[in-house]
C-alpha cells in the first residue's frame, strides 16, 4: 500500500471519527432518555418505524463506524500481532463491509 493510500486511510479514520463524535453524542442522549422506565420493543419501534430522520441518522452512523473500526483494528493488529500487508488489508475490508451490511440490516429492521 502506498504512502498516499496510508495517509488517506488515516484521514478517513479521523473524518469518520468526527462524524461518529456527533452520532455518539446523539446516541448516548437517546439512550439515557430511552432507558428510563425500561426498554420495550413497542417504545423503540414507535420511535424508529417509518421515521426517515432516524433512518438517515442510523444509516450514517453505521457507515461511519464501518469505516472507523476496521482502520483502527488494522493498526492494533499490526502493532500487537505484527501482521501487515495485503491479507490484513483484505481482512479489514471484509470486516468493514460486514459491519456495513449487518448494521444496515439492523437499521432496516427497526425502520421497516
Amino acid at each position, binding site marked *: 500500500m502506498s*504512502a*498516499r493510500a*496510508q*495517509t488517506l486511510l*488515516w484521514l478517513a479514520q479521523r473524518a469518520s471519527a468526527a462524524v461518529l463524535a456527533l452520532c455518539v453524542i446523539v446516541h448516548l442522549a437517546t439512550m439515557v432518555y430511552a432507558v428510563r422506565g425500561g426498554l420495550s420493543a413497542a417504545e423503540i419501534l414507535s420511535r424508529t418505524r417509518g421515521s426517515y430522520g432516524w433512518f438517515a441518522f442510523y444509516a450514517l452512523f453505521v457507515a461511519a463506524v464501518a469505516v472507523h473500526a476496521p482502520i483502527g483494528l488494522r*493498526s492494533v493488529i*499490526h*502493532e500487537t500481532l505484527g501482521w501487515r500487508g495485503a491479507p490484513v488489508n483484505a481482512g479489514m475490508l471484509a470486516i468493514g463491509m460486514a459491519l456495513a451490511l449487518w448494521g444496515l440490516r439492523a437499521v432496516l429492521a427497526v425502520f421497516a
Partner: protein
Amino acid sequence: MAMLKVAVWRGAEKGGFQTYEVPRLASQTVLDVVTHIQRAIDPSLAYRFACRVGVCGSCAMNVNGRARWTCRTHVEKVAADGQLEIAPLSNLPVIKDLVTNMEQFFDKWAKARGRFTGARTRDDDFARVMPDSPQRRHVDAGIECIGCGVCYSACDVVQWKPDYLGPAALNRAWTLHNDVRDTRRVERLVAVAGDAGCHACHTHMSCSERCPKQIAPTIGIAGLKRAAAAAALDGEL
C-alpha cells in the same frame, strides 16, 4: 558516608544487572555515579559521554526505567530511596553495557529527509525569515534537539513497529518543513507519510514527556500528519 545502591546493566542484548555501592555525594549526577563505577570499581564498564553539560546528547540511559540525559539528572531527583537502576536506552541494539548502537536512529533522520536543501548560492543575498512568522516559531519550538535518543527510547510505537521513523527524525522533518528556504517539501512529506511515518503516532506523548530539552515532538508530528494529509488530497503525495 552514605552509599547508593546502583544496579547497572552488564553485557549486551543478553546480560543482567550487577549491583555496585557508590558513595553518595552532594550535587551528584547519574553520570557521576557511572563514572565513579568505571574509574574506581570496574574499569571494564562501557558507557558513552562527551560534554557532561547537556549539549552533545551522548550520555542518555534508562534511569529507574525512564530514559534520561544522565549528565543533567541529579541523583537527588531520581534516587529518593538511595537506589538506582541504570540500563542502556530501549529500542536500540545494545553493544556493551550502557552503550547502544544508534545507527538505525540516525539512519531514520536521513530517511525522513532530515537535511536542508536550499535554492540560493553564496552569491545570493541572505534569506529573510521573520522571527515572529508562524513557520519560524514552529522551527524554534523543535530546533534545540540534541539527538540524544531519549524520545526514541521512550516511544512505544518504535517498539511495536521497528520501521517507524520515531519522534526525533519526525521532529527534524517538521523543522525543515517549516524552513521557508527549503526546496524539498513535497519529497519530505512523501518520506514521512503513512504507516511507518507520522501517521503511525498514537499520541502517547512519551516523547514529549521525556524530552530533556522540553521539545514536544508530538506537536510536530501532528503538524506533519495534517500537512501530508493535505498534500495527499491535493494529489501532491
